[in-house]
């Protein structure tokens, strides 16, 4: 089963060329580790959509 490069355990693995069948065989630890990183980044406040200016369109 594919595993991440041990030098970059926490990085986002490059899955671009993996087929869906290959994805299904990914090591559980790869999935769990990266999901944890993504979850942490959301908790840190990175996902905050900003509303834009309140200039009107009534001209």
């Amino acid at each position, binding site marked *: 089963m594919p595993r991440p490069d041990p030098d970059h355990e926490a990085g986002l693995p*490059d899955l671009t060329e993996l087929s869906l069948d290959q994805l299904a065989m990914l090591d559980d630890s790869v999935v769990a580790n990266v999901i944890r990183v993504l979850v942490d980044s959301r908790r840190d406040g990175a996902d905050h*959509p900003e509303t834009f200016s309140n200039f009107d369109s009534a001209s």
Partner: protein
Amino acid sequence: MPEGKLAVHQLSTTDLRAVAAGEIDATVIGRLKVAELSKHKLLLTALMRAAAKSVPAVYAGTLVPAYRLLADVQAGNKQVVRDMLASPQFGSWTAHCLSRLGDFPGELESAFPLEEDLGQLSIVACAAALLARYPFVLDIPLRHGTVTFPMLGTARPGASAEWEWGSACLDDRGGRVCSSVSATRIALDGSAAPEPDDSWSQIPRLTAISCGLAVKFWLDDLDPYLDRYGLPRAAVGRDDLLTWQSRLTGAWRILARQHRPLAAMIAELIGSLVPLAEPFPGQPVSATAAAAFGAIGLSLPCDALAMAEVLVHECHHAVLSAVTDLVPLTRPGGEQLTYAPWREDARPVGALPQGIYAHFGLAGFWRRQRREGSAQARFRGNVEFTRGLNLTDQTATALGDSGVLTEAGTEFIAALRGRLATWHGESLPASVRKLAGDCELDHRVRWRLRHVRPDPRDMRSLVRSWLAGAEPALPLTAVSVSVERRPLLATGTARSYLLMLRYRDPERFQRWIRHGGSPSGAKHDHRRVDPADRAFLSGNYAAAAEGYLRRIAAGDDAESWAGFAVVRQHTGPAGVAAVLAHRPEVTADLHERLRPHGRPTPDRLAAWLADPSGPPSREPRAW
């Protein structure tokens, strides 16, 4: 890929600095896009595993057949499945469902039953099969008898219940969706609806080409997984579609001609526009969500320039979302609330990079745009550039000092500030700086009065000093304050709106000065303009100060204090102006506490706080 080993997506320090400086080339854009594709694939994998554990029956009955169809389509047509998995609605759906299964935080509540939510994978698989012309038949969930296939369109076969499972298929008779009520044919060749009853409609596309650069967007008001901006979506009718297309055509002319690198970035990264309803008349909104990479939500911009602005702003949010998926810029613990000059609410400090970067992108846009068009257009561009430059730099400085940045975040903000430093040296007229300064101060003072609370013990000490006729018990800068999260105001203020109108549409501003009425001139605009605001905006500072002081004496809200603070920047004295600008909450709190003791004027209090050597019993000179 070496056998058994996966490479990881990386962004080098050089790339990171380039992104921070606004120099995003096609190579970096490509890296960000494939990284987001990997993220979506990873989320799908995690979702399948989570579902297998927590809802095994749905996993076996719904997810596995859908996954199998998608894999079969992929075997014959990689690109279709790649596009489908990279789409914003797919990323949004995986994050949403993982959240429902408890493995991902921060998602909106779902109105869908879980099985129907997870059944979206069947709809995605059907859409891929339809696009690849791969024969299939698969059960799909229908809501109110409709289903929207990503990148295709909406079928409306009807149903006998709110939720119903129907089927989709593709065979030698073409594509169809069947429900308990009827069957709907799917038009796959881009032709008009084959049914006379509007039971099939394609997702509208907006396209534009200028200077050899083309862009294509889906205008998607139906996909349920693009409904994630916390704002109601706007339905787009035939006439609306023409207006949207017209805005894009104009915006693209501006972007492709004068901002080509930005235009190329937008064309490459953004695929879907999600039309949003304005929360209040005349108050447009736009938003980006990290989980829906490639989509932006926006209300219909008022003109082509506004649309260009929105695309630039939101595309920068998308870029930074993708960057932070690879390189965290902030450490855990960035929840401390602080000021963001583009927001009315108090923001977690960890959220600042997003706003900084989006406004940095806009500042760069206006830096070039201010050289285009009429004298009025160039003046507006200068003010927009100055505002963007100032607010970005001030906030980036504060973020740099906050201690929440990672090493990469420090590198990123340093590179961004380095670029801003080169812009600071550019020549700007004093009148431009003055207008920008009024807007900045008005916003900051209003925000401080709403969200910043001085420490009650410190304030009691100041009260005692005042009543004793002594100097302040502690310097103004030593008064402790805390930031509170308070509910957002329903709408922007009339004054802040008119301050913008001064440079965005001077003719309309002058009409308002002459004739009054609502700020926007629209009957539905409920914002009313106070006489003090009117005097201030007309340049009659003495009358404005009198008006604001009357309102303050009557116990008026933060609005009058903010107006008064801005007026004092124009009239002085400098010490009073500085106190009102930097610590308005202390002056206002002290004024309120001393109300039972003779109502000292704000000028006296601010002068005392600014110049402790002046006894409080001394009457202020008339200003």
